[in-house]
């Protein structure tokens, strides 16, 4: 046939859709049930947090950072604290580092249990959702007992932690680990490693090959599921993690093969649940006695930070992948000059959008759920013309131009002449 008619349909998944937890938009071009193209649109959840942050002092930003995300609230405030500590050269007491590790791993357990449930819901297996969220309640109770809140536990402060882990908490955590080891984990493994429905749906769905994972700089379980051994806690010798014997989890240890599909990402999460429990136990054993924060009062910390100069970068392996916070000091002021973060969902989202091409429509919800997207973390910038109210999309070229202008504005002494036209940037020819 010469004139083959293509019955392509464009379907919007989002901004509001039952498969998505947060507003984001995927414009999916379909040929029948097969996906031909995926276009990602972001910016429905912009709250202008960086702008708000530029009007808060260092201590206040801690609590703002916590509210960036509803799940990894500890990760954001931990990473921000690390960035500020690096900027001001503050030494954190060792006990505080251990407490940070324990809370971080507790948070990982609750985040991964949540995501396992969401993946179950995405394939219509609601029993998995309800039972895994029921199991999650236990770790939420422990977090509430330690921090006073189920989600925003406000553990970190600049130069340490705000709350100690006492004997009572220790007993509670060990009880919880026992409950998970004996009652929850066997069931989770049964479902995510051996259940025929789960295997039929998750195997070979949304495959991100290792090459794509590296090219798109996928993070966290998404990268590890594709066989990239990438874990900031391990690669960067973060805090006390090397003493706890951390190593990146890949699906190879469980199933023997790495395919980079949704199944593998879930297997990584199951493995990390086991690992987190081990890490918590070791941390509780090795935890030394001593101070939990470097400064007795917050105002002492603020005085010290007022004198700080330069910039700091904090990195941490959040449950979804590597989280980076950047803080630039404004000497003489308690308000930072710049506060910027990069979330793991941003690279993961484009990696999974690439992976969906050629798959079926039925795989879209579960593939999106498998990277555990956190859009409230991701949305940073929306460029809107204030006169017409229209949204504008900036290309790489525009961004490069804008950043050269900004650099000139900050430091007019720079003599070098970058050439945006004709060069390459990140492998893309401009």
């Amino acid at each position, binding site marked *: 046939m010469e004139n083959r008619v293509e019955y392509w349909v464009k379907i919007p998944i989002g901004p509001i859709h039952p498969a998505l937890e947060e507003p984001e938009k995927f414009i999916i071009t379909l040929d029948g049930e097969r996906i031909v193209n995926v276009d990602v649109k972001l910016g429905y959840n912009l709250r202008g947090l960086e702008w708000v942050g530029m009007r808060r002092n260092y201590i206040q930003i801690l609590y703002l950072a916590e509210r960036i995300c509803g799940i990894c609230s500890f990760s954001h405030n931990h990473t921000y604290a690390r960035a500020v500590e690096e900027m001001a050269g503050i030494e954190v007491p060792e006990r505080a580092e251990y407490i940070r590790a324990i809370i971080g791993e507790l948070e990982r357990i609750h985040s991964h249990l949540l995501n396992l449930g969401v993946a179950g819901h995405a*394939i219509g297996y609601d029993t998995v959702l309800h039972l895994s969220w029921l199991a999650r309640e236990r770790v939420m109770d422990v977090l509430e007992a330690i921090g006073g809140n189920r989600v925003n536990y406000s553990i970190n402060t600049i130069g340490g932690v705000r709350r100690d882990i006492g004997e009572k908490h220790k007993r509670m955590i060990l009880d919880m680990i026992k409950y998970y080891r004996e009652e929850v984990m066997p069931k989770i493994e049964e479902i995510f490693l051996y259940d025929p429905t789960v295997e039929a749906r998750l195997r070979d769905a949304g495959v991100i090959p290792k090459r794509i994972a590296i090219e798109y700089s996928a993070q966290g379980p998404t990268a590890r599921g594709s066989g990239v051994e990438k874990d900031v806690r391990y690669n960067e010798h973060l805090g006390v993690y090397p003493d706890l014997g951390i190593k990146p989890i890949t699906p190879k240890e469980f199933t023997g093969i790495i395919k980079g599909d949704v199944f593998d990402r879930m297997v990584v999460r199951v493995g990390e649940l086991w690992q987190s429990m081990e890490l918590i136990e070791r941390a509780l054993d090795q935890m030394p006695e001593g101070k939990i924060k470097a400064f007795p009062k917050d105002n002492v910390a603020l005085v010290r930070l007022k004198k700080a100069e330069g910039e700091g970068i904090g990195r941490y392996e959040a449950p979804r992948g590597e989280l980076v916070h950047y803080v630039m000091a404004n000497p003489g002021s308690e308000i930072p000059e710049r506060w910027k973060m990069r979330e793991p969902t941003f690279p993961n989202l484009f990696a999974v959008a690439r992976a969906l091409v050629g798959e079926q429509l039925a795989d879209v919800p579960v593939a999106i759920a498998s990277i555990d997207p956190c859009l409230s973390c991701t949305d940073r910038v929306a460029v809107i013309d204030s006169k017409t109210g229209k949204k504008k999309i900036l290309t790489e070229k525009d961004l490069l131009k804008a950043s050269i202008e900004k650099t000139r504005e900050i430091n007019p002494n720079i003599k070098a002449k970058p050439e945006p036209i004709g060069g390459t940037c990140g492998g893309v020819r401009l």
Partner: protein
Amino acid sequence: MKILYVTVGLIAIYLYVSFASLLWEGLDRKLVARMQRRMGPPILQPFYDFLKLVSKESIIPRDANKFFEIAPILALAASIALLAYTPLGFEPILATKGDVIVFIYLLTLIAFVRVIGAVSSGSPYAQIGAQREIIMLASREVPMMLGLFTILWRLSKLGVEKPFSVGTFYQYNIWEIGTPLTIVGTFVLLMVFLLWLASEIEVGYFNIPEAETEVAEGPMAEYSGRHLALFKLSSALKEFASASLVVAIFFPWGVSGYLGLSGVGAVILDLVFHTLKAFAVLFVSMSIFRAITGRLRITQAVSMFWSRILPMSLIGVVLLVIDVLGVIA
């Protein structure tokens, strides 16, 4: 006089089955909730939902055509007509020579009307849901019809007047034949029918056309208000009617005979007993199935029908055929 009797009977049955099927929806939601360790909604929730939907405004999409509004009414009309041919512990009201075939036609017609309504709504989600519905329809009917007609053929060997009528099941019982081959064959066909029932009411593996997280309720995506209420009622009726067919084929026993009742009392008692049996079948095929499985991809579901369920049905058929023709034994 007969017309009056039939009309009154049909209305009574319609009211009773509406009540029973909506009650089952509530029971199902409660039972599944308990299996998932949650409280679940009140048992009467489907009634509240129905009344609320009826009283709400129905939004018609701009791109919809006339069929969008007609389809719910046609679907409900088809399901009420279906009730006239549904075995409910006694022979259907409009029992004729070939009412089994009419039953299957009407059952399929409901799905077709849903598809027409979905296609007319102009929504891409509904479009995809309709495609999936048609694909499922084409796959699920074959093993079921093969099994159904084989059982009817086996029963006709016992000497019935109307071999293609539902009444056959109340004259003779497939288990009564009693030879080992029929029992095994019927058991295999029972499995086929339970899977068919699950796919007919679209739960568990087969919740593909209405996949909530994929295509936002598929064919029902654009329906709201009283149009949605009519569809909900018609699918509840269809659920009950499909389960009734399975009950009539495999578990046709009544209790009135043992208690020595006759007349209206016997009819009511049989109807109640039949309802309980239908609930039991739906419990296996709907509640448990829905709690322990997730949704398949459409390709996987179709290949399951053609490469698993159809051979299963063939095995049952071959066993029954061998029994009749006496090749072995």
